[in-house]
């Protein structure tokens, strides 16, 4: 943890504290407190995974504030109606445990929303109380004499350990683990009915599972586009491309009407391979490999040229086919633009802040562009992240300041120290950009002070191209447009 240094917003010639307090304060260092956190809590990651599953309702077992806050975050980011249910624990129920509330909530959701799946996450409150969600869910199922025709999946998400990144991973794993489990296979679940007849005729063994990691709907769309271009039948975990970027068509979905189906999740066990496009969300893939022998390929998120190449090369190897012409053209266009833009981007110092996969990918990409990713920051303390960045740093010869498990305060310090010229991060970092008078490329989660967060693209060649345009034009506007005449 980086320590507090010369953070001087203003000079304080006269300390407002008395002598004794001054002594006390002098001994104090920023070690415990978090100032403007840069990570979210666990249930949010679970909810994000569940929003890509057809007919899934996320239920947070805790007080209703947690789920309301998360809905608020998600709604203002995606600008879509989003439902996240709560067991609405209150003072009285806190004392007696949450069994009654959880059973009642499952009942309400079952009857009101007719889901194809309920994902039940815990919250800090119910973790602290120690509610045993598995046995409460079992009780609910028994009470209903097996009339429940959809899976109810418990996911443990105590936020005082970890962040939304870990829980996103754990949720995928829990889904795959529970749904590929035998007992569930025997049941006649409504989610198993596949509307898409054609896809069920395809040999399951030809399919490839793709774990996307935390991506925007448009990025998931791009992953699907690439797979289609390469003629690959896939199962995407989890597919939020339509549920969180849904058209205005006169209907409102209370549960995602599009997304990965229960049947698809079950079929992951039979697929030829799993590609995890994330180093932080591959547990479901590890499980499938161990349990069912589905080979796991762990790739970096396809951001920028080389990482996208790697993704496509893997697909080529897996299917023994050729690279699609269209993809080749897209690649060429990106290369062309990289050459054209270099004069503006060369040696620009950039700071990148957000989820680990995204930050690693953008670090690679900006370095491909000839920029210097001088500061990278993620909210979770993570060794894998540090190693990935160190690898890039040793390959490209840039010295990169790594903040892993830091907050925005730490980020701000480094942005100042390193004299960063352009910042990439979510809306929270807008304050830093403004104070340092540098431009901000809004990316990641949450982006609530601009429109179109669900359409932000960073994955694949095409997104690389539009992102490159955005970065370069932002740099031109900031550092070239106002040149004094004598410089022209």
């Amino acid at each position, binding site marked *: 943890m980086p320590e507090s240094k010369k953070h001087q917003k203003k000079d304080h010639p006269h300390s407002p504290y008395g002598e004794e307090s001054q002594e006390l304060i002098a001994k*104090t260092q920023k070690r415990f407190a978090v100032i403007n956190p840069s990570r979210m809590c666990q249930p949010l990651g679970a909810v994000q995974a569940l929003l890509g599953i057809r007919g899934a309702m996320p239920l947070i077992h805790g007080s*209703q504030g947690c789920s309301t806050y998360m809905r608020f975050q998600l709604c203002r980011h995606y600008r879509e*109606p989003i439902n996240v249910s709560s067991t609405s624990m209150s003072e009285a129920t806190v004392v007696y445990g949450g069994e009654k509330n959880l059973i009642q909530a499952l009942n309400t959701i079952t009857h009101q929303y007719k889901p194809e799946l309920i994902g039940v996450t815990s919250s800090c409150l119910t973790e602290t109380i120690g509610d045993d969600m598995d046995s409460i869910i079992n009780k609910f199922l028994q009470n209903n004499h097996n009339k429940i025709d959809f899976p109810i999946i418990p996911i443990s998400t105590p936020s005082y350990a970890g962040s939304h990144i870990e829980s996103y991973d754990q949720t995928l794993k829990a889904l795959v683990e529970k749904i590929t489990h035998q007992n569930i296979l025997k049941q006649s679940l409504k989610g198993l009915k596949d509307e898409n007849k054609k896809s069920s005729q395809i040999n399951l063994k030809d399919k490839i599972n793709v774990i996307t990691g935390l991506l925007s709907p448009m990025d998931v769309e791009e992953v699907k586009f690439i797979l289609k271009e390469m003629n690959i039948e896939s199962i995407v975990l989890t597919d939020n491309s339509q549920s969180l970027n849904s058209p*205005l068509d006169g209907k409102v979905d209370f549960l995602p009407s599009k997304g990965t189906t229960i049947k698809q999740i079950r079929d992951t066990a039979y697929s030829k391979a799993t590609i995890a496009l994330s180093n932080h969300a591959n547990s479901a893939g590890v499980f499938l490999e161990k349990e069912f022998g589905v080979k796991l390929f762990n790739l970096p998120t396809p951001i920028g040229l080389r990482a996208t190449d790697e993704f496509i090369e893997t697909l080529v190897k897996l299917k023994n086919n050729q690279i699609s012409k269209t993809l080749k053209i897209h690649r060429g266009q990106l290369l062309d633009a990289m050459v054209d833009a270099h004069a503006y981007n060369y040696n620009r110092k950039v700071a990148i802040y957000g989820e680990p996969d995204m930050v690693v990918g953008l670090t690679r990409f900006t370095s491909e562009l000839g920029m210097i990713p001088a500061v990278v920051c993620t909210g979770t303390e993570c060794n894998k992240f540090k190693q990935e960045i160190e690898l890039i740093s040793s390959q490209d010869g840039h010295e990169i300041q790594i903040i892993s498990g830091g907050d925005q305060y730490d980020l701000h310090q480094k942005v100042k120290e390193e004299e960063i010229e352009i910042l990439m991060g979510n809306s929270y970092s807008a304050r830093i950009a403004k104070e340092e008078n540098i431009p901000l490329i809004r990316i990641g989660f949450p982006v609530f002070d601009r429109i179109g967060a669900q359409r932000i693209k960073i994955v694949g060649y095409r997104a690389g191209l539009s992102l490159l345009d955005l970065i370069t034009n932002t740099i031109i506007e900031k550092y070239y447009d106002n040149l004094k005449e004598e410089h022209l």
Partner: protein
Amino acid sequence: MPYDLFEVDKAIPERKKHIYIKKSDDPEAEIPSCNTKTIPGCMTERGCAFAGVKGVITGAVKDAAHVIHSPVGCTAYGYGTKRYPTTSSMPDGSEFPLENFNLKYIMGTDLKESDVVFGGMKKLRQSILEAAKEFPEANAIYAYATCTTGLIGDDMDGVVKELSEELGKDVVAFNAPGFSGPTQSKGHHVGNHTLFQHLVGSKEPPQTTPYDVNLIGEYNIDGDLWILKPYFEEMGINILSTFTGDCCHDEICWMHRAKLSLVRCQRSATYIADLIEKEYGVPYMKVDFFGPRYCAENLRAIGKYFGLEDKAEKVIQDRMAKIKPELEFYKEKLQGKKVWVFSGGPKNWHLPRPLEECLGMEVVAVSTMFEHEDGYEKIKQRAKENTVIVDDPNSLEMEEIIEKYQPDIMLSGVKEKYLAHKLQLPCVLIHSYENGPYIGFEGFINLAKDIYASIYNPVWNLVEFQDEVKEEPLELKELSAEEKSTLSAK
């Protein structure tokens, strides 16, 4: 029967008593059941008690640092949620060095597993010290309990008492963990009592006048306060303390010195006015500044109290003259449009009448997140026959309200907005506003303008769905000779 069980609520018949349809010959006591726990699993729009205190009451104070005693989530979500800007000017004429400090920073104790097991007091103490060091400018530090810390029973009061002495500045603990009440309203209550108990009466204002008022329950959402302030200035009335929009910590400490308290948001802040009246004998008056008529009536009442009737009249005439032409324009455009108002609490009785009287709209549905009996009584009084009044609607009920009552526009919050849009119902935000402020004479025009813009958004003429189109197959008409010739020329 004045209560209605919605189609979507068959599985939860308890909801029936929360949905009331106004009939004027009903006994007075018939109002929706309210301020009760949400049914688990019911998709409520309500928040938690912690959000009620930090997000509403204290978050607007310009010079206090906030320390949330919680795992990371509550702190992260409690950051930057409301739009209540502040100026840097202080009552003694000095400048507070950090602009919009209240919007920019939040601190948290970031509880870890071991803290949950062994208690988080040490960490709380340390974090408050860190806040003191990091933000020496802050004139007070406010610490908040959340569900986890409420449950493990950390003695926050003890810690802040110690630290207040050690630091020589006010450190205040707010004990409103999320689970402590059915809605954010519980947090308002705790916030009022805590601030009253610990602060009011502890400091003296730099100067006083015979025309000093407390403006209570005005949080300066999107600059509301800055609309109201000039009215008072022109009347010769001095706002000694605002509770809490654009206020500083010390203003709360000297609220006992006002001659009169004006209670603007009566759901979240009547408590403190009441306490101040009981303890210090400062009377209070409930006021309403939404819509020109209420605004005028209330300014007159305040003018009368201070013997400043003429001046009040002047303000009213001046503003009315300014807004009249625009008001007429919007009234013509909005005449007969049906509206659904869904706010947290009081805007549900503030807004309907002005929308009807001044804009010619028809309020068909009213719903609230956390209103209590007294509020529902007012809503009922002001509602027209057959208006549906819903306490804490769930998301399915919302769709049913839209289908049954066919509003042309919804006034609500961000979580509801996108649901409305999908159903082609325009929606204007009234919690944090679209292009506010919405209060006062000029603010009402802003609201009317936003409503008008949303209803007359040209996109609504373009919305056409495929299945609708499919029903009328395209008829190919015979080309005219002229058209044929131009085609063949190509």
